């Protein structure tokens, strides 16, 4: 199979979706000739025209709201929100409108829109361009939340998101854009709500989201040399969440680390942790659940500070060692 980047996979999914369905259109800031904030829409305006790949003013509320109105009346808009931090200025249209309309109208209207957005730290862009706020949206009934960790998942899940009849938040990590993987050249979908086992193992389960999946896989390689076998579970979608896959893995390994890049306090890691803690498996764990997440600080610009603000591979290795050691039991 071809090897392409995560960014190319997204571009390809958009290209195919625009070709497949005339109701699909893209809107966002600088998505035309500029190709989007990170290049995900490169070449698409030239191919599909300015009507279907639509540059908008810097008006996040209007473009989110326009997508709601268009989605309710037969179109399938795909918004690019340049940085996920800008969700704050589009929030009403997503939280109070898009998420609630199907329910509030007794099922009589659908809002099939997708908001793609670049999230996460690691680029030195500082506090207003580096956050991982996906948990905010996971808290809202009516929204679906997707966080692909590799190129294959990105393409298949984006196709699924565009075909879904609900508003879908699609979180892309900036540092993943240049990562590469095998991706089929033809369109395919990955069902929303199905987790993926990224690496099979017996000793410790790491439930990791987004970029933490990659870091967990690296940590797994490191500890493998010491004979520790790690299973990495990627939920891929936070809402709906594949609880069964998570619990099945933890039942097998009886040790678990939950890792997100997002700030740990009140983050999605707490949700996953609670699901495990509330299950029957909790009584059979060999060591306490370890929850890793970002420090409770605004993201700093300086490189070292920025790196230490989120869990890194060494953090994961330390956590693995902790739950494999007797000390882990006393934690």
């Amino acid at each position, binding site marked *: 199979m071809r090897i392409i980047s995560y960014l190319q996979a997204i571009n390809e999914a958009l290209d195919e979706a625009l070709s497949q369905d005339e109701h699909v259109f893209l809107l966002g800031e600088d998505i035309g000739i500029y190709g989007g904030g990170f290049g995900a829409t490169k070449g698409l305006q030239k191919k599909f025209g300015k009507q279907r790949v639509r540059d908008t003013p810097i008006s996040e509320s209007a473009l989110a709201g*326009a997508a709601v109105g268009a989605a309710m009346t037969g179109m399938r808009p795909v918004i690019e929100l340049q940085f996920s931090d800008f969700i704050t200025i589009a929030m009403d249209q997503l939280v109070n409108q898009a998420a609630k309309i199907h329910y509030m*109208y007794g*099922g*009589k209207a659908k809002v099939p829109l997708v908001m793609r957005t670049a999230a996460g730290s690691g680029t030195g862009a500082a506090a207003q361009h580096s956050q991982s706020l996906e948990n905010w949206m996971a808290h809202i009934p009516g929204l679906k939340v997707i966080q692909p960790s590799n190129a294959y998942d990105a393409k298949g899940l984006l196709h699924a998101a565009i075909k879904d009849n609900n508003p879908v938040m699609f979180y892309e990590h900036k540092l993943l854009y240049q990562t590469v993987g095998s991706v089929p050249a033809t369109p395919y979908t990955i069902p929303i709500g199905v987790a993926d086992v990224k690496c099979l193992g017996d000793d410790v389960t790491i439930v990791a989201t987004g970029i933490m999946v990659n870091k967990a896989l690296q940590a797994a390689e490191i500890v493998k040399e010491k004979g520790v076998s790690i299973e990495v579970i990627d939920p891929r979608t936070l809402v709906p969440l594949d609880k069964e896959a998570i619990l099945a893995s933890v039942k097998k390994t009886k040790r678990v680390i939950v890792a997100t890049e997002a700030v740990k306090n009140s983050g999605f890691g707490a949700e996953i942790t609670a699901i495990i803690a509330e299950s029957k498996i909790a009584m059979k764990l060999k060591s306490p659940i370890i929850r890793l997440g970002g420090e409770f600080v605004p993201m700093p610009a300086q490189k070292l500070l920025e790196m230490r603000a989120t869990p890194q591979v060494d953090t994961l290795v330390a956590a693995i060692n902790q739950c494999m050691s007797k000390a882990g039991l006393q934690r």
Partner: protein
Amino acid sequence: MKRKVDKIPVTRPIVATEALKRMWEIRIFEEMIQELFDAGELYGTMHLCIGQEATAVGGASSLKQTDWIVSTHRNHGHCIAKGTDIRSMFAEMLGKKTGTNEGKGGSMHIADLNIGNLGSNGIVGAGFPIAAGAALSAQMQNTDQVVLCYAGDGAVNEGSFHEALNLASIWKLPVIYLIENNQYGMSSSIEQMVNIDHLSQRGKSYGIEGITIDGNDLTEVSRTVAKAVEKARNGSGPTLIEALTYRHKGHSKSDKLLYRSEAECRDWQENNDPIVRLEKKLIQNGEIEANEIRQMEEVIRKEFADLLASVKHDSEPTVEDLWTHVYAEDTL
């Protein structure tokens, strides 16, 4: 895109006597809601539009059934004017499964997409971009639909107003923004909240024609909206209309009206009631007689009372309904 809306029913300009009937339907509906509320039979909240019937009817009556309206929290008039089923509206207000929204929306979210009512909104100003989006959809799908977006005076200070008007203008969207300036956003006089004489002036900043009209003159509202609709339909873009009006009742159920004088209220009620004004005009023109109007009013009262009585026997949602409709089940 080639798709066209098939067989658009041709709408003739509304006959004034028909408009009067619609206005009476709204007034009577609102009075009945007030009575239900006072009798403790209505759970939740409501925002009555008594006194604003001309903007509701003058606006929606200039549309085809396939055109859209986007409404506000003060929505009952708009919904009735667009043709939303009265019985289903009563049912929604009373929390019945037979309601427009199966009891899940209540007063503030009444929607009926089948007749072009894209829904009412509890967030002030949220409808502006949604209306732009529906208009964009019509433009892209090459239908000849237009969108009429109702909003209150208070909404023009929301960012969404400015963002949406700009968007509608640069894309020449078929949308009409009809601001019902009823002088107050809850308790706040609009005079104290903006530093301009007419809210319609704000159209100019976005390259949109702005007009201020007498919102209690049915003929003026319907003539102005009809012109804006024609303009939108032929691809010439949006219009901002400010219609001056007044709400006879308070903002919502718990308003003690401490912010406006009794004399002011009385003046609007006694000298500038849109229904009374239209009746006088029609009688003067010999289009209808006073006794015919009273007869019409009685027929509506009887009809609505019967509807309400029958709705009271409708079943309510069951607990299982709590979990339905959170997500649309099907995909493409």
